[in-house]
């Protein structure tokens, strides 16, 4: 695997979203702020999730993580499908870069975008409610793992989809429900037992719960369990993505 070639593809992927950062970074930050204003305003006086933690404070890390995840997914998936549909993927297909180089570059750039948007959301929303950084290492660990996992899922979706509507379906029917039902807007402990059990089957729940742990020092489940589940999910998804790339799935006829 060529480091120079991998680095070039990574930089190209970062440059691609950075050149349209108004759309790829600023817009998702604004969306997150709108969520915060609306949900925070409506629910602030009604919900106290953890003792002493108001709803807006609880919501901010959830929104940050949701932005990280959605944008990491959007980066690899939209880059790949655009290149496939416009045909310029051929420039990459004729290079000596192997499946590992593709994976590192696409997922690495997805992580950069996810984390950049997450940081943006954090910097804009942190003024709305008191926040602490009680166990900050969890913040970095779960943000990075979550971005990597969603960047990989984005690669799978980008490889699989042949049209933009298939991509939209993947986003709307898989990624959106899994993020929204993961506890971004609520603590799963406030759910009826059946839905609590269902939530515990969703790996996204552990990403957000572990991420939130870094802020409040409290979480719905142990951060170590979350780390194990998220780490294992990442390993499985990464291995599957690498296999698809190596086989040339929908890339090389």
């Amino acid at each position, binding site marked *: 695997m060529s480091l*120079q*070639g991998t*680095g070039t593809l990574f*930089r190209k992927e970062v440059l691609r979203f950075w050149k349209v950062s108004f759309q790829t970074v600023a817009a998702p930050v604004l969306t997150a702020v709108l969520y915060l204003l609306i949900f925070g305003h409506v629910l602030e006086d009604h919900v106290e999730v953890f003792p002493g933690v108001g709803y807006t404070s609880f919501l901010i890390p959830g929104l940050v993580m949701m932005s990280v995840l959605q944008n990491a997914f959007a980066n690899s998936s939209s880059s790949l499908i655009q290149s496939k549909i416009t045909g*310029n993927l*051929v420039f990459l297909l*004729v*290079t*000596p870069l*192997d499946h590992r180089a593709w994976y590192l570059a696409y997922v690495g750039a997805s992580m950069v975008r996810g984390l950049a948007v997450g940081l943006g959301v954090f910097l804009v929303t942190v003024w709305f409610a008191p926040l602490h950084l009680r166990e900050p290492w969890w913040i970095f660990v779960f943000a990075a793992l979550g971005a990597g996992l969603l960047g990989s899922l984005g690669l799978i979706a980008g490889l699989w989809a042949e049209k933009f509507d298939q991509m939209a379906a993947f986003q709307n029917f898989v990624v959106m429900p899994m993020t929204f039902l993961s506890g971004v807007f609520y603590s799963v402990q406030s759910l009826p037992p059946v839905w609590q059990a269902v939530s515990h089957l969703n790996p996204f729940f552990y990403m957000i719960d572990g991420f939130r742990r870094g802020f409040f020092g409290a979480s719905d489940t142990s951060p170590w369990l979350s780390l194990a589940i998220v780490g294992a999910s990442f390993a499985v998804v990464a291995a599957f993505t690498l296999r698809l790339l190596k086989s040339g799935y929908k890339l090389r006829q």
Partner: protein
Amino acid sequence: MPAIEFHRVGKTYRGARGTLRALDGVSFDIEAGEFFGLLGPNGAGKTTLISILAGLARATEGTVRVMGHDVVTDFAAARKALGIVPQELVFDPFFNVRETLRIQSGYFGVRGNDAWIDELLGELGLADKAGANMRQLSGGMKRRVLVAQALVHKPPVIVLDEPTAGVDVELRQTLWGFIARLNREGHTVLLTTHYLEEAEALCGRIAMLKQGRVVALDRTSALLAGTASTMLRFKTDDPLPPALAAQARVTGRIVQLKAQDAAQVEARLAALRGAGVRVEDLEIGRADLEDVFVEIMRGAEAPA
């Protein structure tokens, strides 16, 4: 060692609408330094063969090597040795011309390549477009960038897949001047084209494909010599007598008739006069590659 080796290459596409045998046992070598033409009608398998060479498609059976490197098991070395100019006019709208070339260079692990990039831009008449976004370029300019992209890592083997389709005369001149120079400097060139006069002018050797098989493979001069050497060309508005019509190639008002020797030229003219056909602008000339092509494609109706 040949620059390119095709050994019993076969490709079968299996789809919902049945199977298509795009290539069937294609074998030939292209020696280093050759300017080689790959000709054939649409659907003959030219682009499939080039896609397998470039790693864009995988052969169902057989092997392909570039400078001795297998395109599947040793793909990185094979692709480093290859520069491909794709048929489709594709580009990445996020970047300008120089960025595009720097990125392509980086993919191949070539660092600090600006001197060569500048030379390419100059040779291809793109020097004043270096900062222009790809979206702003005309079709002809985009085609030049495709050529520059293919050459940015200085590959010893250059593959051009119908590079002059829909391209203006000026670019054709620029392009062929440049490619011919690279060939003289030792690069191997594989060209597919629909313009047979280009192939005749440039290619030392030619393979013709039809329905996925090689139906002719020889030096261009040998192909030209091996066919009827004389062609009668004229214009007429009258119908030809049936015996001649069966052998003639008619393009609008222009009729072309093969003749083996002077006696046959005379006989043909006598037959035309006898049938009352008014002949204008009569020329007697040598057969060109187009005549060879048509003859071979006709002869290969039922491939052996």
